[in-house]
């Protein structure tokens, strides 16, 4: 009898907590970005940021090792290259070289060729997102540094490439901000296609290329894009991004029968799994730079 009553009480507890959770979901959905729950969220993020800064830097090698183990093939080639590089570096002071390299990377991030006259700010990635259903990064700059929701985030590419779009600022807290990556299903960006056409590229999830849809065919000819061709932001009026930021290269083109417009996918230019330093463009659609 006692056991029966106990399990009955547990069931009541479950029902009560489920109802509380549903209430919270409703309240949060209705308040959309303001109110007590978002203030709590903001406090949690700001409170965590010192810990994240410290641990991410110290523990990144372990994470890199694990993700490295799953992409062994490509790393082998890079390893070969790095070995040769190291042989050349042994003579010099390696520590000084590492510090110099870091400085070079930050300088490179501040002088990406497509930034133009737009003021920018460099930030370090301190968390790679704790959920598999949310493609976001946390960076170590926030509203205290002048960041505003919606600002474009870009990064340099791997050695020898120009780099390109990473995403946009999602939630901005006082000392940290989250970057919604361009592979996130909530993410849409207007892109310029060949022959005066424009379209949109939208994310469909981490690790998958972006889906491109053609929006306007300003001339009678539909866009003809070849595999490997680079695509940049269109920067049309009311767009969230300034024109000319490289987004990706065309990964596949397929023409379905009966349709004028090809179905295309877009591979981001920046390797999102290896990001360390990113650049925030202090630009908004209303005010410009």
């Amino acid at each position, binding site marked *: 009898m006692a*056991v029966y009553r*106990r*399990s009955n*009480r*547990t069931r009541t*507890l*479950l029902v009560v*907590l*489920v109802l*509380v*959770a*549903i*209430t*919270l*979901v*409703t*309240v*949060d*959905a209705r308040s959309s970005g303001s109110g007590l*729950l978002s203030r*709590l*969220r903001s406090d*949690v*993020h700001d409170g*965590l940021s010192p*810990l*994240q800064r410290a*641990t*991410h830097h110290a*523990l*990144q090698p*372990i*994470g*890199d090792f*694990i*993700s490295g183990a*799953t992409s062994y093939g490509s790393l082998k080639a890079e390893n070969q290259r790095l070995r040769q590089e190291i042989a050349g570096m042994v003579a010099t002071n390696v520590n000084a070289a590492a510090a110099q390299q870091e400085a070079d990377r930050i300088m490179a991030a501040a002088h990406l060729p497509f930034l133009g006259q737009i003021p920018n700010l460099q930030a370090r990635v301190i*968390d*790679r*997102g*704790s*959920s*598999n*259903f*949310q493609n*976001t990064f946390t960076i170590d700059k926030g509203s205290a540094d002048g960041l505003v929701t919606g600002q474009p985030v870009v990064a340099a590419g791997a050695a020898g490439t120009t780099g390109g779009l990473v995403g946009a600022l*999602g*939630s901005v807290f006082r000392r940290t901000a*989250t970057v*919604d990556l361009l592979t*996130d*299903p*909530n993410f849409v960006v207007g892109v310029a296609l060949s022959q005066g056409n424009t379209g949109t590229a939208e*994310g*469909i*999830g*981490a*690790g*998958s290329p972006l889906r491109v849809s053609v929006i306007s065919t300003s001339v009678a000819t539909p866009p003809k894009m070849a595999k490997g061709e680079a695509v940049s932001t269109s920067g049309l009026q009311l767009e969230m991004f300034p024109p000319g930021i490289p987004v990706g290269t065309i990964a596949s083109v397929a023409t379905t029968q009966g349709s004028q417009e090809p179905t295309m996918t877009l591979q981001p230019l920046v390797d999102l*799994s290896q990001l360390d330093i990113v650049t925030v463009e202090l630009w908004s659609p209303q005010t410009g730079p």
Partner: protein
Amino acid sequence: MTERGKARLRVAALVVVAFLLQATVVSDLRIDEVAPDLLLVVAICAGLAGGARQGVLVGFMAGLLADLYLTETPVGLSALVLCIVGYGVGTLRENVLPEGWLLTPALAMVATGGGVALFVAVGDIVGQTQLVAMGRSGLVRIAVIEAVWSGVLAVPVSWLFSKAAQGSAGAATLDRGRQDRTSIR
């Protein structure tokens, strides 16, 4: 402080530590872009070590913490899913499942698959359509890899939980059940 109160404090401390680890270290552990969900593992292990009641409470707490750190899904969604998972695991443990070294990782894997499916399904119902945007194959991939992570992590985490929950009401019930079973044998 009573033995039960101490057990409660220890369990709560474990949940907070798990949350801090998830927000700092765990997100860097990725196989094919998929990271473990330590708070889901915590909800499962709480149910395993302390029964349904502890599973519900710890699941809700852990879920709420996870919600406060996420930014795209509404607060309460993880709490809802994790307290149901904790309850399910705890009820199974109390009524059906025998003990065994394989039980923990196996149950953790199954429960993680169920938890991921529930999160996506409830999320889709409350309007979070981005959760299903990656299609069925993408969701299955995430669920499978996350389940493998959980299977591995559940072994140390459930050991910690059984230590922490010692003296709690739930652990006492499970202990009584164990004695009954041995005496029957």
